[in-house]
């Protein structure tokens, strides 16, 4: 079956890197002047040469985002269901090798967490687990979806990659969107960071969006973990992947996130530091390439940065996030996946959004829009 793997294999990491680093000011100016930009333009926009054009990139990005999404920012909260994980990932607090108390929420605990999240006003929830098929596999997800579906307008999931048949099975239970980050598209480095567990299978992960597309999930989220490899090259591969997916699975909606490596228990120092300025360059470059992709900003980022950057291309934000299972109401002190930077309450974030002339949108979907039969 054709997949992104066929496209991916035609590209060479080092060649792309050379291309990007060789871009000149004239290439950036040409990219900025165009309206329908291609991947060559994108290379220019994420190149070091684009740095001095950041203000113009931000201006265009803001304008394009306003036109397509209006003066609105969608709000969502993550719900960590489990920190069980069968993988070793060098950068993650949930890694199998980390000695930490493992916890998977039961139905009563889930109810408590849901009530806490609802009380904060959220209607869009992102279910998160570690990658442990036996403890938190399809049967568990089905039960959770069945339990919470009527509580939220929209349910997304960020869990281990599943088979196509699994996604088919979960959609009728109310699964709307799936986020799956490749972590890095650098295959050799990917192997170094994922030495053990199912996640070590680079290609299985790479082809997950294809399985999601074939299964007909409404929305999927892409991204890399910034800090593992050269962010400029990884960004190119995300853009390449997005373009392929949009052309292949044209009924699906897409989002991109920009997780930067954050401190955690027993953590890895980022190989590559990305500055705030570079993150703005990356966000605006995605917008300049693609006017319609949703761009999401999490609480990993610092307060001051979030206050300003959300107006430059972002369409959705999390707030008040807890990254540990039971973090909202059940076990607030349990070990979190990573430290969050912006600890303000959702209401504070909503107030900030309003003060900048935007409307925080808590609900932008309804189960009434999906006729599903199990």
């Amino acid at each position, binding site marked *: 079956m054709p997949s992104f793997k066929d496209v991916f294999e035609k590209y060479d990491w080092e060649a792309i890197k050379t291309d990007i680093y060789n871009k000149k000011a004239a290439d950036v100016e040409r990219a900025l002047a165009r309206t329908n930009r291609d991947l060559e333009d994108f290379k220019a926009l994420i190149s070091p040469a684009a740095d001095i054009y950041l203000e113009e990139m931000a201006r265009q990005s803001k304008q394009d985002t*306003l*036109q*397509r*999404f*209006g*003066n*609105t920012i969608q709000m969502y909260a993550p719900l960590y269901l489990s920190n069980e994980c069968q993988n070793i990932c060098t950068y993650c607090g949930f890694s199998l090798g980390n000695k930490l108390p493992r916890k998977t929420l039961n139905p009563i605990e889930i109810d408590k967490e849901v009530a806490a999240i609802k009380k904060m006003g959220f209607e869009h929830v992102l279910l998160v687990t570690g990658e442990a098929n036996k403890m938190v596999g399809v049967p568990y997800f089905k039960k959770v979806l069945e339990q919470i579906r009527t509580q939220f*307008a929209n349910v997304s999931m960020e869990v281990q990659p599943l088979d196509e048949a699994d996604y088919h099975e979960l959609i009728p239970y109310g699964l709307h969107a799936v986020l799956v980050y490749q972590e890095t598209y650098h295959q050799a480095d990917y192997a170094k960071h994922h030495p053990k567990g199912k996640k070590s299978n680079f290609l299985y992960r790479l082809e997950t969006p294809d399985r999601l597309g074939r299964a007909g999930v409404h*929305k999927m989220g892409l991204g890399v973990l910034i800090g593992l490899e050269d962010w400029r090259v990884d960004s190119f591969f995300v853009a390449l992947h997005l373009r392929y997916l*949009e052309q292949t699975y*044209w*009924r*699906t*909606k897409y989002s991109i996130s920009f997780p930067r490596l954050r401190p955690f228990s027993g953590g890895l120092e980022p190989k590559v530091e990305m500055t705030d300025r570079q993150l703005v360059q990356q966000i605006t470059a995605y917008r300049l390439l693609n006017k*319609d992709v949703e761009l999401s900003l999490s609480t990993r980022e610092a307060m001051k940065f979030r206050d300003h950057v959300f107006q430059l291309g972002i369409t959705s934000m999390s707030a008040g996030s807890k990254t540990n299972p039971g973090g909202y109401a059940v076990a607030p002190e349990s070990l979190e996946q990573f430290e969050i930077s912006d600890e303000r309450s959702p209401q504070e974030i909503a107030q900030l959004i*309003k003060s900048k*002339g*935007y*409307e925080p*949108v808590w*609900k*932008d*979907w*309804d189960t*009434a*829009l*999906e*006729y599903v039969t199990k």
Partner: protein
Amino acid sequence: MKNLKIANKVFNSRLILGSGKFSNPGLMSAAITASATELVTVALKRVNLGSEQDDMLEAVGSVDLLPNTSGVRTAREAVFAAEMAREALGTNWLKLEIHPDPKYLLPDPVETLMATIELAKKGFVVMPYVHADPVLCKRLEEAGAACVMPLGAPIGSNKGLKTLDFLQIIIEQSQVPVVVDAGIGAPSHAAQAMEMGADAVLVNTAIAVSGDPEKMAQAFKMAVEAGRMAYESKLGAIADQAQASSPLTSFIDA
């Protein structure tokens, strides 16, 4: 200016407003008032169907509500959503939007026709959003659509009437009102649609994202009225050449 009649309802205004993209409900409310519209579309996905209080519905105020199905991908989903909306919002009016393509939000003609047939049978006042396809518009009319809503350009693009030639055919052929929807980015675009004989226009992005939505809403109100008045006054024909003062055939009667 003549009134607009859709199904069994008469409207003084020929401007329909979309309610997405505003920076806050207060501004939306002010724009609605300034536009003098009598019909506002609200996306089902943004409304709290189960709740009595909803900021967006409150901002719409006493103006008639037109729920839309933005987000559905099939006729079956659209019918399901329509029934939920009728129950929750107490209206059988529906802007039918079926766009399986989330990028440009282009409407699916096949699913739209199928849904219109079924919804009309179920007693809905169906206002389908479609591409500017004259044949499809006639098929929708036969299926029981209360009006047709062909696009001028992709949603939110502000590009104006890119489908002009086809809109002209649709307007010429239609026995139900033609509401030009999507792409109208400036009052002059709205006026142009009205001058052509469109029965109404629907505007959202151009107002909501403007620097002053209230003033822009008023500008659109005036443009729609001016365009309609011009249409009703019958515009003069456009000639490529000046009319000869000495007609070439005058010798025949000489």
